């Protein structure tokens, strides 16, 4: 080489440019505060653009890909009725395939390129947790996160983020108390998903169940073989199996138990207790399993928790209301809990948007989240207030019947995520006719 010096100098220039890039430590918090939330990107005279990230494809899509279909149906219904405060809601759904890297990319796309006014119902703990800090830093309302993780409720650090689902610990407490009260003295086993779902739910369960628990087994969502876990429960003599599982794993567990001739009382979390979905998944096996196990036997008697007016609460006016929207705007999709989940989410957002008023800013929407009394559609109230961004605060207990209808066996109870008691929630909800969002 003829001119090593020039080369070295050039190399030095490039390298020092990189070194310069961060004189301070990479992990130390730099300057830069929250953006002013007193603006309204994505809002025009007659539209408001919102966005969400959902797993529409890939291994995690089953079970979730219909939530946005439900939400879209409600937005179409509202838009056809004139929109909220005279604005049509434009709903942008981005597929992140449940891949956190993609979540960050698509959320930044929604915020920077699509200029959405708010993110509504971003789905998943591993995914959404990666954008909370960004959304809060940009002052983007991050409403009704589709996950029961506890971390959404942190108003000081994440003022624009609001939960939606009843959190896993609250639900665990309600389940724990129910099992303690109704199956006194029986041995209990936990089947949990080996992430925060499992960890947080057990924290709730353990407040009421202690010595009764004879086995705890985790499952990995990527490994569909749950026979080993169920075998262990059977050997431990567990009579009640609390399954904190997503729908596919609920069904797998029911089938695995049937396979080994094990008949415990199953208690399911709301995330995996959708009777319509479960019925679709298990009935065919029952048909083939021979006459001695009728189709319904696998599902009948299974206990679960719920906090939404699902398709099976036929005497609930909200359930009827959503069924009508479904029949009109998404007739080709099956009407399941998953769909209702998206519909209630959309409806709740519309309530907040209405309350935020015609003169819309992000801050007004955030204020509306804490000041609006969201009576209905949910069965229990939200925990939204100045110092709580916690979603639904309780749930009812249901039993699934042989025909996949459900019977409410314990009316809605509410609780906190700490040491507080589990108490009945008695307030009446208004009917859909009384909650008027559209028109002027």
């Amino acid at each position, binding site marked *: 080489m003829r001119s090593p010096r020039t080369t070295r100098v050039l190399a030095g220039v490039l390298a020092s440019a990189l070194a310069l890039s961060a004189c301070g430590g990479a992990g130390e918090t730099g300057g830069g505060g929250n953006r002013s939330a007193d603006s309204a990107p994505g809002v025009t005279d007659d539209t408001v653009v919102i966005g969400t990230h959902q797993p*529409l*494809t*890939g*291994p995690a*899509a*089953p*079970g979730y*890909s*219909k939530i946005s279909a439900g939400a879209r149906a409600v937005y179409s219904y509202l838009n056809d009725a004139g929109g909220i405060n005279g604005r049509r809601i434009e709903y942008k759904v981005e597929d992140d395939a449940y891949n956190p890297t993609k979540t960050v990319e698509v959320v930044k796309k929604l915020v920077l390129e699509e200029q959405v006014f708010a993110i509504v119902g971003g789905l998943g703990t591993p995914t959404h947790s990666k954008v909370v800090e960004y959304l809060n830093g940009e002052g983007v309302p991050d409403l009704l996160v589709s996950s029961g993780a506890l971390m959404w409720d942190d108003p000081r650090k994440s003022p624009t983020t609001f939960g939606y689902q009843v959190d896993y610990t609250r639900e665990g407490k309600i389940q724990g108390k129910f099992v303690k009260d109704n199956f006194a003295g029986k041995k209990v086993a936990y089947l949990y998903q*080996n992430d925060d779902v499992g960890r947080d739910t057990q924290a709730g369960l353990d407040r009421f169940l202690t010595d009764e628990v004879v086995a705890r087994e*985790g*499952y*990995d969502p*990527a*490994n*569909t*073989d749950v*026979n*080993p*876990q169920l*075998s*262990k429960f059977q*050997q431990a003599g567990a009579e009640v199996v609390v399954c904190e599982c997503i729908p*596919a794993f609920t*069904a*797998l567990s029911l*089938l695995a138990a*049937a*396979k*080994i*001739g094990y008949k415990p009382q199953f208690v399911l979390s709301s995330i995996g207790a959708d009777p319509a979905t479960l019925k*679709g*998944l*298990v*009935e*065919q*096996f029952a*048909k*083939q*399993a*021979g006459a001695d*196990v009728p189709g319904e036997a696998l599902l009948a008697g299974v206990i679960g928790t719920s906090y939404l007016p699902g398709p099976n609460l036929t005497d609930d006016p909200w359930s009827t209301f959503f069924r009508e929207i479904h029949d009109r705007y998404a007739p080709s999709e099956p009407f399941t809990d998953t769909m209702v989940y998206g519909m209630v989410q959309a409806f709740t957002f519309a309530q907040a948007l209405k309350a935020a008023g015609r003169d819309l800013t992000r801050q007004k929407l955030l204020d509306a989240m804490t000041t609006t009394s969201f009576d209905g559609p949910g069965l229990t109230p939200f925990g939204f207030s100045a110092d709580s961004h916690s979603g639904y605060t309780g749930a009812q207990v249901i039993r699934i019947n042989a025909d996949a209808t459900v019977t409410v066996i314990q009316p809605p109870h509410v609780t906190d995520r700490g040491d507080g008691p589990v108490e009945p929630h008695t307030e009446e909800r208004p009917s859909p006719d009384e909650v008027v969002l559209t028109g002027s």
Partner: protein
Amino acid sequence: MNTIWHLVLNGISSGAVYAALGLSLVIIYRATRVVNFAQPALALISAYLAYATTKATGSYWLGFAVALLAGTLLGVLVERLLIRRVSRRSELSSIIVTLGLLLVLQAVAGMIWSNEPHAFGYAFDFRGRFSATDLFAVSAVLVTAAGVLLLFKFTPLGLRMRAAAFRPEVAKMLGVRVGLMLTAGWGLAALVGSLAGMLAIPPFISPNVLDKVFVFALTAAVLGGLDNPVGTIVGGFALGIGLSCISGLVGPELVPLAALAVLVLVLAVRPSGLFGRTIARRV
């Protein structure tokens, strides 16, 4: 002790599936030196057709027949339309083409049948530690494997196929229609692959349902030796039993890691798998 026995039984039936899917990979690899990444997608599409048939007619076995038939046809078509153009070009070309095909077919399945899971029935009663369904799976795989081996070993067709696989040019000089043999190889492989799919997919079918199974099947084939059908079948069962025990005794989340560890250990000692031919490899 009881537990271990249960885990072994559990592993045998999943091992049967790895063995069958692995076998389909080996048949194709031997015939065309292509690792067929689209194999799970071929099995997936044929299983979806079975699902649709069973739903329409109520007959599981009609669906089963449709799956095997459709699988074979798909294999033949894929070889004729795609693989023929790339297989002799380079290893990478065929990997990427089959990968592209995998994406297309999975997406098509999602378009037609949605990405939501559907119930997908077993052949027989699935209840019992080693149920009628498990027995069916294991025996179907063993019978199929034996059939494939006998076909290769003792029939003129098998002899032609082997010749076409080992030395295509020489086979041509001896009057063997090599192209036809390769097509037949793909058809046969896809048939075995569809069988594997029908056994692996229950209880639920969704577009990505075979991804994990495929990874383990490939692991089994690599373990056993990619040009050795017997080795692959042994590898499949061994992997099934081993992973079931690890899942039950150590933890379900460790299964992929364990598969990696086993593979690394075996390949460190025998770079062409347990039963692979180390000497006959040509550059």
